[in-house]
């Protein structure tokens, strides 16, 4: 008996004309985002649970200032990365490099602003992770997010280097887009962290 039932073209015609399975990169990145969301959910949950439970000061409404500029920078970097991704898809590597550089700069600005905020809190207000529950939850949640921003920036910087050395072109548009999903995720998490820490928590 031959291998007909399993391999004939007839079978292919009956069952599955021109299948399109999703690309591995997209599904893989979705999995990463799903699992990271679960990780963040626990930290956000802990933050909300401990709002107002600090036994000693300083308390959030005494020391927290809303990071307006940093937030604007980070959220607009989501736009610039979309422009970059579109530019590359259309084949405009130069335009892509420009928008990509803008994304990198905006992300860096966010990280620097967080650094200044922490410096202010630690040296001027005397709030550390050890001080009270607010310090514990604040530094761990904002720090966890900042860690993700850092990882994203490292990836973006790597792509930037590859672009400058001429290794990135239109064929990489899909990979760039998948990387941008991670960046959008980091931004979306910031919206939640921002609402939790600076709106609900104050």
């Amino acid at each position, binding site marked *: 008996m031959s291998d007909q*039932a399993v391999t*004939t073209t007839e079978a292919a015609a009956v069952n599955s004309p021109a299948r399109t399975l999703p690309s591995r990169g997209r599904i893989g990145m979705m999995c990463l985002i799903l699992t990271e969301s679960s*990780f963040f959910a*626990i930290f956000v949950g*802990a933050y909300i*649970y401990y709002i107002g439970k600090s036994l000693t000061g300083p308390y959030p409404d005494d020391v927290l200032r809303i990071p307006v500029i940093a937030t604007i920078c980070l959220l607009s970097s989501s736009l610039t990365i979309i422009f970059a991704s579109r530019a590359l898809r259309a084949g405009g590597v130069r335009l892509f490099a420009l928008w990509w550089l803008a994304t990198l700069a905006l992300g860096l600005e966010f990280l620097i602003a967080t650094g200044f905020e922490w410096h202010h809190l630690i040296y001027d207000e005397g709030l550390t992770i050890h001080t009270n*529950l607010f310090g514990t939850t604040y530094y761990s949640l904002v720090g966890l997010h900042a860690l993700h921003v850092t990882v994203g920036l490292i990836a973006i910087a790597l792509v930037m280097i590859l672009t400058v050395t001429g290794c990135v072109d239109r064929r990489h548009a899909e990979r760039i887009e998948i990387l941008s999903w991670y960046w959008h995720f980091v931004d979306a998490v910031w919206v939640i962290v921002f609402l939790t820490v600076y709106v609900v928590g104050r």
Partner: protein
Amino acid sequence: MATTIDHSLPIDGAAETRDRPALGRVHEWVVTVDHKRLGLMYIGGGLVFFLVAGLQASTMRLQLAIPEAGLVSPEMFNRLMTMHGTAMVFMVGMPILTGFFNYLIPLMIGARDLAFPRLNAFGFWLWAFGSILLYFSYIGAPGLYGAGSAPDVGWFAYAPLTERAFSRGSSTDYWIIAIFLTSVGSIATAANLVTTIFCMRCEGMRLNKMPVLVWLALVVAFMMLIALPPLSAAQAMLMLDRLLGAHFFDTQAGGSAILWQHFFWIFGHPEVYILVLPAFAFASEIIPVFSRKVIFGYNVMVVASIAIGFISMSVWAHHMFAVGMTAAGNSFFVTSTMLVGVPTGIKIFNWLGTIWGGKVRFKVPMLFSLAFLFQFLIAGLTGIILAVAPFDWQLTDTYFVVAHFHYILVGAILFMIFAAIYYWFPKATGRMLGERLGRWHFWLFLIGFHLTFDTLHFAGLRGMPRRIYTYEPGRGLEAINMLATIGVAFQAAAVLCFLFNVVKSIRKGEIAGPDPWDAWTLEWSTTSPPPEYNFAQLPVVKSRRPLWDLKHPEDPDWLYE
């Protein structure tokens, strides 16, 4: 009747391998990204830790055989208990089950490897080093008195016992880092499995044509993606508490010890289902083949699996009835826990429906599967009993609970792991696993299992608490504990039979051929063991049983599905 396709390519890789020196062959295994080798390494590594953690359990059982025995100190008992629990979940259950999925999924969906082979190798080595790190704590973690000491805070590591003030030295840090590493490895594997199943299926393998095992792997992988991070997150918080002086679980600074319990069980309960769903998966492949029937109610089976995945995410606090939650909280978790019995019951009826009227072949894999059905039913029933909050208040932290969850972990999961090993061993090695020793293994293990864990229910009903290193005479517990320990001897003898059988069969077992069980899924269409590329020509399938179609062209399945 030639029922399989010739999958040999002109290049003969096997001959090349045979001539390599031993070191070269070890090197090949270390650097491999082949899903089959990684799967086998997962299963082999898991079995090694199974022996270690099993010996630890036997030591505890010996200590408890008679009242006020002095075999181990209380401190050592705590370490044994912690390491046994932690290892059996993270170093035995998880790797063996992911190992099987690693090995089988690409073969079953007609792919040449997982979606990200290098990520797969990365996950395996994270697991391996995490596991070694956990056991290294025996010599590497100075405790309070300067001597090396393993973690001793229980596998659940309840706060505030794990805080710096109460757990001196670094043994708890070892626990945190080791489990964190293996969890990251498992998450990587889960992402890999999901991507493989969505993106790598062969021609004609639509989602509803996949074997039930693949569906269950998909559910398990999603559960791992969602349920493992809470543990990692809680461990990160505990690490901050211990190393940087944060206050997450520090009750003196307003932190909550209960929050740890919630976080732990948000992971911990889905984890039970992550471990038991693969057992369901094996049963759903083995029972039809040995009943010579199509699986009964494929669609219902799949829907029930997904339902279990969802419901099991919302039952975690039934581990915490004794904490003192609100009445509404208790009622919610009682209800959701009982609800999970519905899809599970559906599955049991479907397996029975598959056997019903079938031409049952009582080979070793089927024997283990039948015992699984019976034992899983009982474990489920005691689970429903424990879901009743007032009953749980009475019996929480007694041996009734220990007996209940060992009925799942041993009676259901371990039995199905053995079944799966007997069933797929011929595929992986090309040789059959001996039937006679297999029967010895089965019957000895069955007797030992029931001697140990049936009796422990009664120890619990008589009020014997968990996690104690000894008990007083004259409380009616002596005979029960002695019987339970005798059961361990039977189980140990069974495991020795099994190991001897494996060693013997690898070298001298009967040659299996590609399809020794006359099975129907794609892994049996290629040679045993499969070539590195799995299929010379990627298969095209038309039904859920492609090999049935191949063997019975006059009556193919795709006419009816």
